[in-house]
């Protein structure tokens, strides 16, 4: 093991001192992530309309007015659905929230009886704190609009007040002093509406009148969202960047094996009391260690700077390890494709570039045309990106992750074995 570590640390030191090689392994993938991330997220500062699902359980004129008011807001896109569908849409992340307009919403009793029953129920993911506050503001605004329409328009308010006075007067269960107070209040409002200039009232309706009323009772339900869409473009471009880093590592270490051969150091290594397996294992260990380190560094950068959110850290570790295994195998296979650095470098990059292009290294898997998506099945890069995305934002279960992890590991083992066999054949 000490010998293996000596071999690996020597390779890591050599790569570390090769600034040009480091650029392709570390800086280039990061630049790719930043470049494509910026392109895909273009105009992200302008907030898109928040999609909400409205569930109208009240089915009243007031509820329809309320929802129409919400729909007229530029900040919202409102679709209607039944409660179960609404919950599903929010859970799947296809809508930000649902708003249930409860039975009795907008009735005078609910507005003035002091009932604790909520008139509006909002279902939203608890992590969406900013959106929750924003939506509550919009709901309150629409509610006040409804109140204004109902009570500060004399033509519609007077009949409602008549109904309300009759209702309160006939309510024998209500205490007498409360009944008298409400009757006096509603009577005063009738007098006020009869004497006031309606034009002036409309003008003032956005000011003091509003502050004199109570807000809606909003209950917030937690609906945990199943993350099946990336939070941002960075969650697409950083897995791609990791693949480019792995491609760079594989190419760099494949060329380093040939360099050992052409410079004669491989001969000295073979003269040392080591098995050939140990020499290649040392090279593989160095490649694996460097690949994983670079992936970790890039991910950390993405998480800290671009708010890349990892849905399942354990699966992410497994994905990075499987990707590392896969590309160590490919490194070994590529190293025996030629006898010179130029031959191996050329062939290696050509193969790895095709893998990247067809596997989602340039065009994200989620926007690939169907035919390219079919072609991508043969590319290890596709399975690598799928595994990384599965852990970051696709919300893969362990069962769903088994396929890409298994394929990556299998490719790595087969490629490494074939590479070692060819190496042994070539080198006696």
């Amino acid at each position, binding site marked *: 093991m*000490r*010998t293996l570590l*000596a*071999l690996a640390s*020597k390779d890591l*030191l*050599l790569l570390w*001192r*090769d600034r040009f090689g480091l650029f392709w392994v570390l800086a280039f993938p990061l630049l790719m992530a930043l470049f494509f991330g910026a392109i895909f997220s273009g105009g992200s500062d302008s907030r898109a309309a928040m999609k909400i699902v409205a569930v109208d359980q009240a089915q009243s004129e007031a509820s329809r007015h309320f929802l129409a008011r919400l729909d007229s807001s530029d900040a919202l896109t409102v679709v209607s659905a039944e409660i179960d569908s609404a919950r599903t849409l929010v859970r799947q992340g296809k809508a930000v929230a649902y708003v249930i307009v409860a039975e009795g919403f907008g009735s005078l009793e609910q507005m003035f009886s002091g009932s604790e029953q909520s008139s509006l129920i909002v279902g939203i993911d608890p992590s969406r704190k900013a959106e929750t506050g924003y939506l509550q503001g919009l709901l309150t605004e629409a509610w006040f609009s409804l109140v204004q329409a109902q009570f500060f328009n004399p033509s519609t308010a007077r009949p409602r007040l008549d109904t309300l006075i009759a209702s309160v007067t006939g309510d024998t269960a209500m205490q007498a002093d409360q009944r008298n107070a409400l009757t006096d209040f509603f009577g005063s409002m009738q007098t006020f509406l009869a004497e006031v200039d309606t034009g002036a009232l409309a003008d003032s309706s956005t000011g003091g009148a509003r502050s004199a009323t109570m807000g809606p009772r909003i209950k917030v339900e937690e609906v945990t969202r199943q993350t099946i869409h990336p939070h941002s473009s960075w969650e697409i471009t950083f897995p791609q960047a990791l693949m480019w880093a792995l491609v760079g590592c594989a190419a760099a270490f494949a060329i380093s094996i040939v360099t050992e051969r052409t*410079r*004669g*150091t491989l*001969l*000295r*290594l*073979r*003269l*040392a*009391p*080591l*098995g050939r397996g140990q020499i290649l294992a040392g090279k593989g260990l160095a490649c694996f260690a460097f690949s994983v380190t670079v992936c970790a560094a890039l991910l950390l950068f993405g998480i800290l700077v671009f708010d890349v959110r990892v849905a399942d850290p354990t699966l992410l570790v497994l994905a990075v390890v499987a990707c590392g295994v896969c590309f160590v195998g490919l490194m070994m296979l590529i190293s025996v494709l030629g006898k010179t650095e130029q031959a191996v470098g050329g062939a290696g990059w050509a193969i790895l570039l095709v893998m990247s292009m067809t596997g989602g290294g340039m065009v994200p898997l989620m926007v690939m045309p169907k035919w390219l998506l079919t072609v991508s099945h043969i590319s290890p890069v596709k399975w690598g990106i799928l595994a990384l995305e599965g852990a970051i934002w696709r919300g893969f279960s362990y069962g769903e992750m088994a396929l890409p992890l298994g394929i990556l590991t299998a490719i790595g083992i087969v490629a490494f074995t074939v590479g070692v066999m060819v190496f042994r054949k070539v080198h*006696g």
Partner: protein
Amino acid sequence: MIKAETLTKRFGDLTAVDTVSFEIHRGETFGFLGPNGAGKSTTINMLAGVLQPDAGRVIVDGGGDPSQPAVRRRLGIAPQALAIYEELTGEENLIFFGRLYSLPRRRLRERVDWALEFVGLSGRRKDRVRTYSGGMQRRLNLACAVVHDPELLLLDEPTVGVDPQSRHLIFEKIEQLSAEGHTVLYTTHYMEEAQRLCDRVAIIDRGVILALDAVDNLIAEHGGESTVRATLSKTPAVSDELPGQMKGNILTVRTSDPLSVVARLTTSDLGITDLRVDRADLETVFLNLTGRSLRD
């Protein structure tokens, strides 16, 4: 120390080494002299266990063949190509190769210091190898071969492309190693090197050992006669009694006993103004054995 028995190696239709047999004794410096492509490096690679012979075998003292890691631990090699890492420092190269032989940390540190001192690179130990001159890189190549203190050193043309100063230093170091009891196999196509350093020399060409013996014996057996050339102050009237042939005022004598001829000439009254003895050497031996020069 190490014995080769009918070693044969073919690469396709080419037989690079053809039934070569020899034995190197403990403490001996053994030379392999031959032109480029003679089969020297192929033989050395088979001795080191890197190349599997198509026929024959290699036996190292104490049993075992060099394909076994435990046996290779006793060998050190300086390959013809510079087998060192240019992006590492001289010290880092030695530490790395020393670690491959599982030297304990303290022992490794001692050996690295010793090896750097041995080849005169202590002052440049922290510099990257790519900043070294060709001669310094050759010396480091030698240091990497000895850092783990091997019993048998395989040196494959260790002075190729070096400046005279480094070459001289390498000679001195090999002589020092030999004096300390190390067994050395030295391959070269420079007959002066073989003649200076080696106790015994095997002359190899086209994969076959043509002759193997101590240098003096090889010369005596295959070198032919020496040539004595005397420049006379005047041409003698009668040259029939002279021991050699006259051409102008130069007398040339071919003899197997040059000392006697010189003694006879110097006591004569021929008026010798200049005297030169061209003794047979390994170049002559090779020429006589193959009909070609070592540098052909």
